């Protein structure tokens, strides 16, 4: 029986690959947009803009304080009530983007704050304007602190993208969920799902660890 199901599972493998592609597409899109939002928000937050800063604080706290599943439901079920109808894929990308953006905002503003203020002061004294200071002095140094947790955040993003399967995005988790109805071997089916996630996530985790070792920052004397 076990072998029979295994053969069936091998036959459905192309669907798993399609699901994996969907997972990569959803998380890839949200990764790019979330990074853009996160960097913009993080820079604003670190520069202590009065009202905007408070708003960002509320946004970040909401995203960090509530489960991602609830956020997905809010985007998918409540936005239509306000006249914004999204199909599953867009709703998934939107919620993942907002979610990742909040965490990346924290990482970026943390990285910027970690750059000693003397650096900014020196840049000011040299006559660099705000943009130049950010571009040539602050960000290059902040990136060392930002990069390792950023890659870690990408791993979390890929893993959390499994949650959007519940609103009907046929990612690899949903393919598994479909398959297990026909092939009632949960360990085998979701073992395969796990392996597919592992293949994507594990290299990224290793990369994050390597970056952490390589980019260990030492602002010691400053």
């Amino acid at each position, binding site marked *: 029986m076990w072998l029979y199901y295994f053969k069936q599972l091998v036959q459905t493998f192309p669907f798993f690959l399609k699901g994996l592609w969907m997972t990569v597409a959803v998380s890839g899109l949200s990764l790019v947009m979330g990074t853009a939002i996160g960097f913009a928000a993080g820079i604003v937050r670190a520069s202590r803009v009065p009202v905007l800063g408070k708003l960002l604080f509320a946004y970040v706290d909401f995203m960090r304080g509530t489960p991602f*599943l*609830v956020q997905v439901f809010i985007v998918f079920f409540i936005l239509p009530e306000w006249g914004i109808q999204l199909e599953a894929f867009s709703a998934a990308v939107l919620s993942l983007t907002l979610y990742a953006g909040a965490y990346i905002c924290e990482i970026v503003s943390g990285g910027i704050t970690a750059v000693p203020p003397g650096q900014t002061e020196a840049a000011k004294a040299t006559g660099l304007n705000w943009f130049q200071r950010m571009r040539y002095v602050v960000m290059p140094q902040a990136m060392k602190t930002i990069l390792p947790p950023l890659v870690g955040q990408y791993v979390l993003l890929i893993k959390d993208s499994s*949650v959007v399967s519940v609103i009907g995005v046929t990612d690899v988790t949903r393919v598994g969920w479909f398959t297990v109805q026909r092939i009632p071997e949960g360990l085998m089916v979701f073992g395969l799902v796990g392996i597919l996630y592992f293949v994507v996530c594990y290299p990224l985790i290793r990369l994050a660890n390597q970056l952490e070792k390589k980019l260990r920052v030492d602002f010691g004397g400053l």
Partner: protein
Amino acid sequence: MLEAFNFRVLFDYMPLFLKGLWATAWLSAISLAGALLVGMVACGARLSKFRILSALAGAYIEAIRSTPLLAQLYFLYFGLPSLGVRLPEYQTGILALSLNSGAYMAEIIRAGVLSVSWGQIEAAMAYGLNYFQRMRYVVLPQALGITIPPLLGQAIVLVKDSALLSLISVFELTRAGQIITSERFMPAEGFFTTALLYLLIYYALKAFSSWWQKRLIFVQPA
């Protein structure tokens, strides 16, 4: 947009939400205890001198960290019955949460234990403290100071992750939001209330974490 918010229905469903809040609280509390146990065992195995034990624990930790919780949850939910193990949904949920969080706990505890420098232990030995005294007065106070804040951070993640249990039809806070959505078709009332109650737990845990951090005297490792 908020004029459509129906507070009367909210009031009707308040007992349900409070029950959900309570369910989320105890499910997370038990899973947290389980995760600490799993984490300590896995950490002990990881640091053990026996190669095989250490490799096994390492494989377990990596496998958990590079696959999504939802896939792990389905793995157990659909997989345990085919092994002949039939658990009620909530027990499967607690098991999945404990095993998932335990892997992260193991890494946190390991970092705490390794942060106490060997010189400290040597000095304690030189004073003639026995194993228990060394642990009680030298190692643990320093390890805890470093370990507690990330452990509480992991506890927050665990509470949010417990929302996924609603997907295997365990009644908890997110399920309460789903019920009000399907019975009255009021997703805004349902999921915003759910989100608010999660925020309540989040802020409580965060306040506790910062209170604890102020209380502890940090001994910075040289």
